[in-house]
C-alpha cells in the first residue's frame, strides 16, 4: 500500500517521515521504502518567460529571457507552444534531469544559453514531449518545480499483512498513527447537499444471494458533467500509482484510497430496468470487463446485474457496457460488502487481482458503506456539478452484530510474560476503537469449572468484554486483543526469558550418529555432497529404468515435473554439468528422499506417499588426479565398491553380501546388488552405468554409481560394539596362491578357507588376482595372505602346516583349484 505523507497529514499530525516509518514498522506495518519523487527534480525551478525572439542563426530555435527569482537568464529553446508571460520549468545550470541529462552552460549556434526549458517528458511527469510544460499561472517564480507540481511529497510503501485490510487506506493508517503518537484523528468533513427526488425512485436493488453479498448500498447523482479531474485530485491518485481517468471514476478511486471502501460507478442510463440484482452467473453468461476482455462466467461467480444481464464482477471489476464516460449524465454509485472467499474465487478464476478484490477478499467493514457513499457522492456533485438525489438505497438484509471478545487482564501478562496493568491494556484497546462493554470481577474462590480450566483463571480475576469495531475483521479472540496490546506497546517492551520447566533431554537418535559416520567416511573418500531438487523429468527416470515418479499437477517445467524415485537422476545431471566445465575427477553423493506412489493408506491422515531416505553416489574420472607420486588411473568398479566398503566399515557392518545382478540401469557385467546377510533383504546396488543409459543421459560410459536404502542400512549398524579381547599370542602368516576356474568368485574361496581353517585361521586377505600367462586360459590365480592365530597359545609350525595343507587340499578338491 502506497501512502502519501502529505495526504496522511490531513487526517492526523505526523512526525518526520523517517520517524513515522520507524513507528509504523514497530507496530507491524513494515515500511519497505520511503520515496521522495521531488528529489529527481532538484535544480529545476519555476520561471516566467519575459521575452522571446527568433534565434539569429537557427530557424527552429528561439532565444528567450526568463525570470527565475530576480535574475533574468537567457535560454535557447526549441519549442513553440508558449507565449511570453507563461510560467515554465527551468532546469538551471548544474541540475540533472530524471532522464540523466546534465544541464550545462552551452553555446547554441553562437548564442549562449544558461539552462534548459523542459517538457513534461523531460521532467519525467508524463509522456508528453510535444512542447514545454506550461505551469499553472499561480506557480511562484523561483520555487522548486517539484513543489509546483505537487511532487514534493514523501511516499511510504507499506507492507500491510493480510489480516489488516482496515489499514489499506490513508484513514486506516492515520488511525494507527493516531494511536501510536497520541495525535487526534481528523475525519474528512462531508459536505453533502441533496437535491431533487429520492434515489429510491430511480433505482431498485435486490440481493439474491445474501450469504455472499451482505450489504449493497447505492446513491444516485444526476446532471453530472464528466470531465478531467482537477490537479489536486489527479496528483493524489498519481502519487499513489493510480492513473486518473475522469472526475467520476477518480472520485471512486480517491475514496477507496482515503477510506478503504471499494466503490463502483455505473452509468445509470445503461442499467437496464434501473434495477440492480446481485446474483450468481447463469450458465453461458458473459461479461466484457473494463479491461476490454470478454469473460465467460462461472456459475460460482457473484455478479452485479441489471434487469437483463451481468454488469460487473462483484467486488472485482466493472463491466465495459455501463462504464462511466464523457456522455454519462446519471451516475449510480455502488458501495457493497461481499463475502471474502467468493471474491477470492472469482478473482483467481479470472486472473484478475484488483484494488477492490484485494480488499474484499481480506474482509471489509460492513458499516463503512454509508459514509463512503456520502463522501463520494458529495465529491462527484462538487466536481461534476451534479445533483445528489435524496437518500441512500441501502439493502442490508441481516445486520451484523459487533463481535464481543472477553479479555482476562491477567492473561495479557500471562501470555506475553511481562506485567502489564489492566488500565494500560484498556487504554490501548480503547484508543484502537474497541469499546469496553462490561467488566466483571470474580470475587472469592474460583468455581470448580474455572479451576479446571487452568491456572490462568485465578481468584480475584478481572475480565472485561470488548466490542470489536466493525473495521477490525481480524479480531475474534482474546489472543487477538493481547496482540494489539503487545503491538502498540512494542515488542521491545517484552523481556527475554528462557523456557521454564525441565525439558526432557531425549538421547540423540542413533540415526543422527550413523549419518554423521557415513558422511565422514564419504568425505574421507573424497566425495562432495550435493543437494538436488526432489523433482526431475520423467525422461530421466525412464532412461534410468526407474519406477515412474509421482507427478506434479502444476510443475514449473517438464524438467521438474515428477518426484524422483532414484537419486541417480540428479547425480548424473550434476556429473554431466561438471564435465562441461572440464572437471577431471568427480565424486559426488547425496542424502535425500525418494517418493513411492500408490501406497495403500489405512488412515486418511497417513502421509499420502511413502518417502524413503536414500544415499547415492557417483564416481567418474581420475582416481587421484595427476600427481607426481603415482601414475594416474581412472576409477573403476572397485572405487565404487570401496566407497561402499568404507561406509559399511564406519557403521561396523561386517558382513553384507555382494552379488552380481541384473539391474537395468547398470552394465550387465559390472552390476551388484547388496543384501543383508541374515534376511537377504536388498539394501542397495552399485556398478558401472549401462553404456546405453550413459549415452542417453549424456555422461561417459566409465561412470560408476551406488545407491542405498539408508533406513535399512542404519538398522544393521553396530554403533556401540562390544569390546573384543586383544590377541596376546603372535600370528603365523602363510601365503596361499591357487589357480581356480575363472568364474569362481573371491567370496567362495575365502569362505572355504575360513571354514576349513577353523579355528586356527583368523583371517584371509586376498592380495592378488591374476589372469594371463602362464595361467591357462579359463583360469585365474588368486593369492591370499592367511593369518593363523590362537587366542590361548603360540601355534607350532607343525599345526599351522597341517591346517594349511588341509586348506590347499580342500580348495583343490571342492573348487577345482590347483596350487600355483
Amino acid at each position, binding site marked *: 500500500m502506497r501512502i502519501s505523507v502529505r495526504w496522511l497529514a490531513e487526517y492526523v499530525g505526523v512526525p518526520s517521515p523517517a520517524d513515522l516509518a520507524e513507528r509504523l514498522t*514497530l507496530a*507491524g506495518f513494515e515500511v519497505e521504502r520511503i520515496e521522495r519523487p521531488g528529489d529527481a527534480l532538484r535544480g529545476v525551478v519555476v520561471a516566467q518567460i519575459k521575452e522571446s525572439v527568433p534565434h539569429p542563426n537557427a530557424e527552429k530555435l528561439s532565444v528567450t529571457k526568463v525570470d527565475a527569482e530576480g535574475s533574468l537568464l537567457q535560454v535557447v529553446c526549441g519549442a513553440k507552444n508558449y507565449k511570453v508571460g507563461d510560467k515554465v520549468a527551468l532546469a538551471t545550470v548544474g541540475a540533472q534531469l530524471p532522464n540523466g541529462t546534465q544541464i550545462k552552460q552551452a553555446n547554441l549556434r553562437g548564442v549562449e544559453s544558461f539552462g534548459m526549458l523542459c517538457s513534461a517528458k523531460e521532467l519525467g511527469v508524463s509522456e508528453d514531449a510535444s512542447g514545454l510544460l506550461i505551469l499553472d499561472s499561480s506557480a511562484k517564480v523561483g520555487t522548486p518545480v517539484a513543489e509546483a507540481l505537487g511532487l514534493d511529497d514523501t511516499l511510504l510503501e507499506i507492507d500491510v*499483512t493480510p*489480516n489488516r485490510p482496515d489499514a489499506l487506506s490513508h484513514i486506516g493508517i492515520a488511525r494507527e498513527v493516531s494511536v501510536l503518537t497520541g495525535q487526534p484523528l481528523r475525519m474528512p468533513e462531508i459536505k453533502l447537499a441533496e437535491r431533487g427526488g429520492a434515489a429510491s425512485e430511480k433505482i431498485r436493488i435486490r440481493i439474491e444471494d445474501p450469504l455472499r453479498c451482505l450489504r449493497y448500498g447505492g446513491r444516485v447523482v444526476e446532471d453530472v458533467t464528466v470531465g478531467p479531474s482537477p490537479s489536486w485530485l489527479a496528483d493524489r491518485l498519481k502519487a499513489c500509482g493510480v492513473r486518473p481517468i475522469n472526475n467520476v471514476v477518480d472520485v471512486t478511486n480517491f475514496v477507496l484510497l482515503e477510506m478503504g471502501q471499494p466503490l463502483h460507478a455505473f452509468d445509470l442510463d445503461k442499467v437496464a430496468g434501473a434495477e440492480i440484482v446481485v446474483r450468481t452467473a447463469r450458465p453461458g453468461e458473459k461479461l466484457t470487463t473494463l479491461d476490454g476482455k470478454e469473460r465467460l462466467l462461472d456459475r460460482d461467480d457473484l455478479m452485479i446485474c441489471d434487469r437483463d444481464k451481468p454488469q460487473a464482477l462483484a467486488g472485482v471489476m466493472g463491466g465495459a457496457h455501463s462504464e462511466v464516460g464523457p456522455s454519462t449524465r446519471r451516475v449510480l454509485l455502488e458501495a457493497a460488502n461481499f463475502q471474502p472467499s467468493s471474491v*477470492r474465487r472469482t478473482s483467481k478464476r479470472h486472473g484478475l487481482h484488483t484494488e477492490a478484490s484485494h480488499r474484499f477478499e481480506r474482509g471489509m467493514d460492513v458499516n463503512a458503506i454509508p459514509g463512503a457513499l456520502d463522501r463520494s457522492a458529495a465529491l462527484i456533485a462538487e466536481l461534476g456539478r451534479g445533483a445528489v438525489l435524496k437518500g441512500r438505497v441501502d439493502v442490508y438484509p441481516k445486520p451484523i452484530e459487533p463481535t464481543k471478545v472477553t479479555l482476562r487482564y491477567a492473561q495479557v501478562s*500471562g*501470555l*506475553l*510474560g511481562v506485567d502489564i496493568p489492566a488500565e494500560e491494556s484498556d487504554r490501548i484497546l480503547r484508543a484502537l476503537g474497541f469499546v469496553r462493554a462490561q467488566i466483571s470481577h470474580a470475587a472469592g474462590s474460583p468455581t470448580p469449572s474455572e479451576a479446571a*480450566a487452568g*491456572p*490462568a483463571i485465578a481468584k480475584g480475576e478481572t475480565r472485561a468484554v470488548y466490542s470489536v469495531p466493525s473495521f477490525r475483521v481480524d479480531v475474534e*479472540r482474546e*489472543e487477538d486483543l493481547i*496482540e494489539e496490546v503487545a*503491538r502498540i506497546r512494542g*515488542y521491545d517492551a*517484552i*523481556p*527475554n*526469558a*528462557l*523456557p*521454564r*520447566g525441565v*525439558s*526432557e*533431554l531425549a538421547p540423540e*537418535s542413533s540415526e543422527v550418529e550413523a549419518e554423521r559416520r557415513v*558422511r565422514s567416511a564419504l*568425505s*574421507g573418500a573424497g566425495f562432495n*555432497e*550435493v*543437494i538436488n*531438487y*526432489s523433482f526431475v523429468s520423467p525422461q530421466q527416470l525412464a532412461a534410468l529404468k526407474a519406477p515412474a515418479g*509421482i507427478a*506434479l*499437477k*502444476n510443475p*514449473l517445467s517438464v524438467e*521438474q515435473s515428477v*518426484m524422483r524415485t532414484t537419486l541417480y537422476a540428479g547425480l548424473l545431471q550434476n556429473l554431466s*554439468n*561438471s564435465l562441461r566445465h572440464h*572437471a577431471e575427477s568427480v*565424486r*559426488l*553423493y547425496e*542424502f535425500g528422499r525418494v*517418493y513411492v506412489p500408490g501406497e*495403500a*493408506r489405512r488412515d486418511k*491422515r497417513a*502421509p*499420502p506417499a511413502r*518417502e524413503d531416505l536414500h544415499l547415492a553416489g557417483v564416481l567418474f574420472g581420475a582416481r587421484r588426479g595427476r*600427481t*607426481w607420486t603415482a601414475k594416474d588411473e581412472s576409477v573403476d568398479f572397485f572405487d565404487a565398491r570401496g566407497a561402499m566398503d568404507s561406509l559399511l566399515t564406519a557403521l561396523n557392518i561386517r558382513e553384507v553380501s555382494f552379488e552380481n545382478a541384473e539391474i537395468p540401469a547398470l552394465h550387465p557385467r559390472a552390476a551388484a546388488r547388496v543384501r543383508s546377510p541374515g534376511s537377504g533383504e536388498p539394501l542397495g546396488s552399485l556398478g558401472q552405468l549401462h553404456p546405453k543409459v550413459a549415452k542417453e543421459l549424456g555422461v561417459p560410459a566409465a561412470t560408476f554409481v551406488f545407491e542405498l536404502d539408508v533406513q535399512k542400512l542404519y538398522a544393521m549398524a553396530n554403533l556401540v560394539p562390544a569390546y573384543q579381547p586383544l590377541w596376546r599370542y603372535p600370528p603365523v602368516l602363510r601365503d596361499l596362491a591357487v589357480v581356480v576356474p575363472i568364474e569362481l568368485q573371491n567370496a567362495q574361496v575365502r569362505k572355504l578357507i575360513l571354514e576349513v581353517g577353523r579355528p586356527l585361521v583368523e583371517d584371509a586377505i586376498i592380495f592378488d588376482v591374476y589372469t594371463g600367462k602362464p595361467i591357462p586360459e579359463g583360469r585365474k590365480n588368486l593369492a591370499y595372505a592367511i593369518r593363523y592365530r590362537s587366542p590361548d597359545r603360540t601355534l607350532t609350525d607343525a599345526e599351522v602346516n597341517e591346517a594349511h595343507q588341509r586348506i590347499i587340499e580342500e580348495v583343490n578338491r571342492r573348487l577345482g583349484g590347483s596350487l600355483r
Partner: protein
Amino acid sequence: MQDRLKKLIEAARSEISTASDAAKVEELRIRYLGKKGELSAILSGMGKLPPDQRRELGEAANSAKAEIEQLLMEAIERAELQKLQAELRGPKVDVTLPGRFQPPGRRHPVSRTLEEIVRTFRRLGFEVATGPEIELDYFNFEALNLPKDHPARDMQDTFYVDAPWVAPEQGSDENGVLLRTHTSPVQIRTMLSRRPPVRIVAPGRVYRRDSDLSHTPMFHQVEGLLVDRGVTMAELKGTLDAWAKAFFGSETKTRFRPSYFPFTEPSADLHITCFSCGGAGCRLCKMGGWIEAIGAGMVHPKVFEAVGYDPKQYTGFAFGMGVDRIALLKYRIEDLRLMFENDVRFLEQF
C-alpha cells in the same frame, strides 16, 4: 721376529689411518688379521722357535693383534661417522612438493548450515522431529488455521500432486495432496501423536512455486515448537535470542517486530544484527544493519483445537527459518539457484 711384528704394526697403522670407508677397513682386516693374513704368516714360523722364545713371541703377537684390532675399530667408527656426515650433508628433500593425499570431500553449504542450526537448538533442549514432504492440504494449511480461500495462502504458492490413490476430501472433488510449503505440518503431526510438553525442531525440504535470484522451487526450513503450561512470549524472545547468539556469535543482537502468520497470535519477525558488519550497515544487509531471519509467534488457539490440545491449559510458541537464505548470507552467495546446480567448482569452496 719381533722386528717383523713392529714393522707390521707400523705398516698397519699407516695404511689403516688412510682407510676412508668400511669396505677398505674390512679389506685391511683380512690382509693383516685374516687366516691367510700377514700376522698369521709371521706366526706360522713360530713353531720352530724354542719354547721360551715362543711364549715371548706369542705375547708380542697378541699385543700386535690387539693393537691392530683397536686401529681397525677406530677406523670403522671414523668411516661410519664420515658416511653419516656425508648422508646428512646430501641434497635436501623438496618440501614444496605436494603430499600424497585424498582431498576430503566437502559438505554442501545448506546441509552444513542446517546441521549447525539443529545442533544449536539441541543444546537448548529441542529434539528433532520429521514429517512427510508430500502432504495433505489438511496438515499443510487447514489445521494451521489457513482454510480454503484464505488470502494468506497467496504467501505460499503451492505445488499440487497428482495422487489418484488418495481419496478426495469430504465435500470436495480435490484430494488436496501437495508438496508441503513449510515445515509447519510437522507441528500438527507431532502434536497429534503426543501430549505436552513438546519441544521439537523439524528440519527439512519445503517447496514453493517460485524461481528467481532469491527463490528456488525447493528450499529448506527449520521449524520449532514448544508447548507447555504457561509458556510466554518472553520465552519465545529469550529462546530465539539465545539461539541467535549461540549460532551467529555472542555479540549478535536480535529485535522482534509484529508480523502476521495465520497459525500464530501474536506473530513476530525476528531480525538479527548483520553478521557481516555487526549492525553498522553494509551491502549484505542492504545498509540496514539488520537481517530478517525468523518468523515466529505464539501458537494460535485454533491450531491447538485442531490437534485436541486445550488452549485454556496450554500455550506455546513456534518459529520457522529459511536455512538456504541463512547459508546464502553466511557464505555471501549472490544467486540462490547456485545452491542446487551442484557445480563441482562451487561445492569445492566450502
